[in-house]
């Protein structure tokens, strides 16, 4: 795997994303239909949409924090967690 230049942090990042997708697959098999609903933003979303919004939104939040304030990223990380909770709870 040396040609892919793996590092532990990036490996953990992808393990996180793939296990989140795995959890969604298990949930979908147990409770089919994707738990579709119309949430606070007026969007019709499934569990998968909410995960996508969480990840993409978190990336934007972290990049904005990095560009505007620089390291460390604890503040933006807290905002990203709040965004994730909001996505799965209300959206």
């Amino acid at each position, binding site marked *: 795997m040396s040609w*892919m230049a793996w590092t532990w942090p990036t490996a953990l990042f992808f393990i996180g994303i793939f296990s989140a997708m795995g959890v969604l697959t298990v949930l979908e098999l147990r409770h089919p239909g994707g738990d579709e609903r119309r949430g606070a933003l007026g969007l019709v979303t499934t569990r998968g949409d909410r995960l*996508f919004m969480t990840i993409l939104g978190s990336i934007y939040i972290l*990049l904005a924090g990095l560009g505007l304030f620089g390291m460390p*990223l604890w503040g933006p990380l807290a905002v990203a967690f709040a965004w994730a909770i909001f996505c799965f709870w209300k959206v």
Partner: protein
Amino acid sequence: MKTENQRAWFLVLPVLLLVAFNALIPMMTVVNYSVQETFGDNLFFWEGLGWYEQILRSERFHAALGRQFLFTGLILVIEVPLGIIIALSMPRQGIWVPVCLVLMALPMLIPWNVVGAMWNIFTLPDIGLLGYFLNHTLGINYDMTQDPLAAWITIVTMDVWHWTSLVVLLAYAGLVSIPDAYYQAAKIDGASNWAVFRFIQLPKMKNVLTIAILLRFMDSFNIYTEPFVLTGGGPGNSTTLLSIDLVKMALGQFDLGPAAAMSLIYFAITLGVSWLFYTLMTRDDLN
């Protein structure tokens, strides 16, 4: 309740494998590169998020991003209305339908690098048909190799020439799918041409136009070959769009770490804008 047989999903496995090797694995490698520094020889040094911080704060990136949004904005503002107008004025039946369709499809059949080379030769001030005509016959000072404004007009015109047809063909497909009954009802009500367009044609074209705008956004935002062949990003840096700058950084300077970070930021912007646009356009259709 009868359980559906889901085994057909195994038939998509080859595609999954192909996507893994041509998209997913390279993408993961780019993520790995973006947090490291390398001097070749497969030797990597941990860099953390430093490259991201550097790119996000670099004037060079801001300038290229600004030019990219300007280019994509101009493309959309020109090509979408123009495409709709051409589609509206195309015949709906008769011998001219195939003629128009083939003529419209022609520019899209030409490879990107050939389009760039064609427009380069076409607009060169000393030997190009258009360039020579403008400079020596009309006396207009036009030199896309020296003047940034001329270079911009040339790349925008080239993209309009190459890709307006896509909007035309999609809009036309939306138009011909409208049943005659709608037009007859509009005629009985005495609707004006504008009312027919606003309340019948435009709503019926909404779905294909959404796809057209999305495709034109992604293609023009990721455009590389045509402006690279036509202007090479010049004069100076005036037409250095994001992808041209990215290739300069990755292959010209061999700064793989910063280039990887930049390409991931670039990807996040493309993905975010596309998702937002598609979600907002289709929000009312669901439910």
